[in-house]
């Protein structure tokens, strides 16, 4: 253990890249703000806000999925993830940061007094609309603000508690009694996070934040679908950081066996995402009820047709065909390529989920989207690197670490 590189030093190149991306992002944000944000046209304005909205929601949920991964493997008594568990932990430290951006954006949308994005905020229209009236118990300003704040706050807090417990594995060796107690505490805190995660990401939050942009339409699949999108992207992000750290000579205990398992997650849940995509699509296609098909009208037959099916190709066909072989999941090059592709694919997926409802008639994908994306990628790189540098990279005294070192798939 003597020669382990536990302390991550942020390479200056990485910082330069991060600052450059943030710079591009800020420029794009300002340009968009002056061009569309201040525009008198409410629709132009909604496009600008919507662009920021889907980016920030996407990155919050993706980083939250990293903590979900830690909690799930903890509850499953997994040992294999211990050698690189500090990476998902560092990624999950983005939740408070991206979460506050999301909170600011959503509160702005809620209190701006405009109803272009959330039609159900318009109380006069809701009163005349029997469908929206029936949903008013869930879709109303008070509940939206309360639940959004609570969700982001508790993700951050429960995640923080989980990470704080993980730091105890750096302090000193456990004996049988304290080790068992440590593991038990881990499961307690992990299950608290999972329970809250299920109530929010697994059900209400995607309904509240994204599905309610088309308030007349509903799909019970929607939240699982969104959750799977973010989980696959989260696994890809973890894979990217693991490979980056391996390239820099850190994470000595992590090897192809671990990469293979991360690759399996990326592969399997890409398929599961498609399963949900299809389950949602086929039932609506088959039943052909106008109040349900309204969501797919702009996507399958309208302006978003190309993006909608392109999305299916890169998020389903590519992972299916490329990641199927064992050798592909063990190859650093291919996993890197697929991770970038999957992240991009699910970003596009979030794009069409939000913007396909805000701007039904034409596709808005352009410099603003990629600029805002670069802002979030830059922030992610910078803060995850800082989080990684703030802690030992290996939970040295974790009782399950040995299991991870000898892991064999």
């Amino acid at each position: 253990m003597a020669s382990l590189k536990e302390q991550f030093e942020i390479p200056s190149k990485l910082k330069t890249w991060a600052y450059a991306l943030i710079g591009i992002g800020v420029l794009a944000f300002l340009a968009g703000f002056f061009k569309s944000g201040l525009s008198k046209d409410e629709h132009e304005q909604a496009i600008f806000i919507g662009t920021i909205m889907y980016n920030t929601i996407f990155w919050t949920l993706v980083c939250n999925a990293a903590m979900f991964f830690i909690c799930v493997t903890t509850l499953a008594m997994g040992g294999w993830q211990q050698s690189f568990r500090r990476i998902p932990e560092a990624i999950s430290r983005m939740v408070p940061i991206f979460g506050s951006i999301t909170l600011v954006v959503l509160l702005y949308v809620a209190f701006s007094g405009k109803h272009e994005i959330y039609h159900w905020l318009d109380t006069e229209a809701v009163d005349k609309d029997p469908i929206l009236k029936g949903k008013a118990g869930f879709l109303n300003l008070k509940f939206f603000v309360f639940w959004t704040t609570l969700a982001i706050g508790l993700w951050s807090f429960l995640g923080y508690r989980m990470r704080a417990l993980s730091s105890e594995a750096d302090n000193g060796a456990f004996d049988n009694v304290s080790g068992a107690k440590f593991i038990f505490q881990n499961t307690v805190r992990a299950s608290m996070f999972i329970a809250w995660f299920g109530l929010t990401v697994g059900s209400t939050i995607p309904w509240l934040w994204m599905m309610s942009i088309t308030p007349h339409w509903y799909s019970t699949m929607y939240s699982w679908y969104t959750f799977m999108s973010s989980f696959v992207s989260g696994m890809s992000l973890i894979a990217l950081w693991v490979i980056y750290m391996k390239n820099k000579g850190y994470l000595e205990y992590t090897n192809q066996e671990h990469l293979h398992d991360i690759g399996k997650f990326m592969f399997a849940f890409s398929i599961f995402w498609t399963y949900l995509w299809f389950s949602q699509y086929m039932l609506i296609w088959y039943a052909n009820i106008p109040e349900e098909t309204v969501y797919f009208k702009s996507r399958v037959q309208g302006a978003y047709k190309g993006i909608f099916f392109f999305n299916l190709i890169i998020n389903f066909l590519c992972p299916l065909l490329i990641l199927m072989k064992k050798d592909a999941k063990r190859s650093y090059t291919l996993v890197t390529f697929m991770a970038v592709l999957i992240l991009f694919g699910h970003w596009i997926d979030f794009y069409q989920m939000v913007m396909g409802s805000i701007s039904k008639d034409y596709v808005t994908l352009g410099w603003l989207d990629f600029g805002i994306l670069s802002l979030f990628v830059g922030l992610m790189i910078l803060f995850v690197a800082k989080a990684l540098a703030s802690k030992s990279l290996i939970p040295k005294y974790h009782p399950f670490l040995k299991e991870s070192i000898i892991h064999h798939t």
Partner: protein
Amino acid sequence: MAKKKFVVGCFDDEAVLFPAVKKVRTAGYKLHDIYTPFAVHGLDHAMGLRETSLHTAGFIYGITGTTTAISCISWIFTKDWPLNIGGKPHFALPAWIPICFELTVLFAAVGMVLTFCYLCQLAPFVKKHHFHARATDDLFVMVIECTDKTNTDDLKAFLSNSGAIETDLQFAEADWWVGRYDNDEIPFENKQELAA
């Protein structure tokens, strides 16, 4: 169907077995097989077995299933007997996907099971020689095939030195045969034709 001469070494510990496998291979002996009570991680690698091609076979079976489903349904619904079902187009791909999926899984699963049985030579009434009854219980049984030039006493001593707790020499049928154990031989009685 030919009987061959085998030297059998029994180990009671994985940690002893792995170095012994390595030694046997470097010494140039011909490993017939190793029988273990449970799947031992990495043993296939240590024995130098090639990667199984079962998954490739599975992929081909799966593709066959998809093709069968798609071609069959599309021929029936567009050419042979077109029906108007709920005003949907005749070529109603989304509705077929569950069936294509099921047929893919069915073909892949059945095909892979049969291929697996073929590769392992498992079938009803097919019998193989048991080198040691405790291979199913708690012993790791390494079987080495002898050639004309193999000095069996040397080999036995070599295995004992490598940590085998028990060694013996057996003349046994290397392949499978169809029949019943009680007609041919009783495996658990250790009936062996010992080398002269």
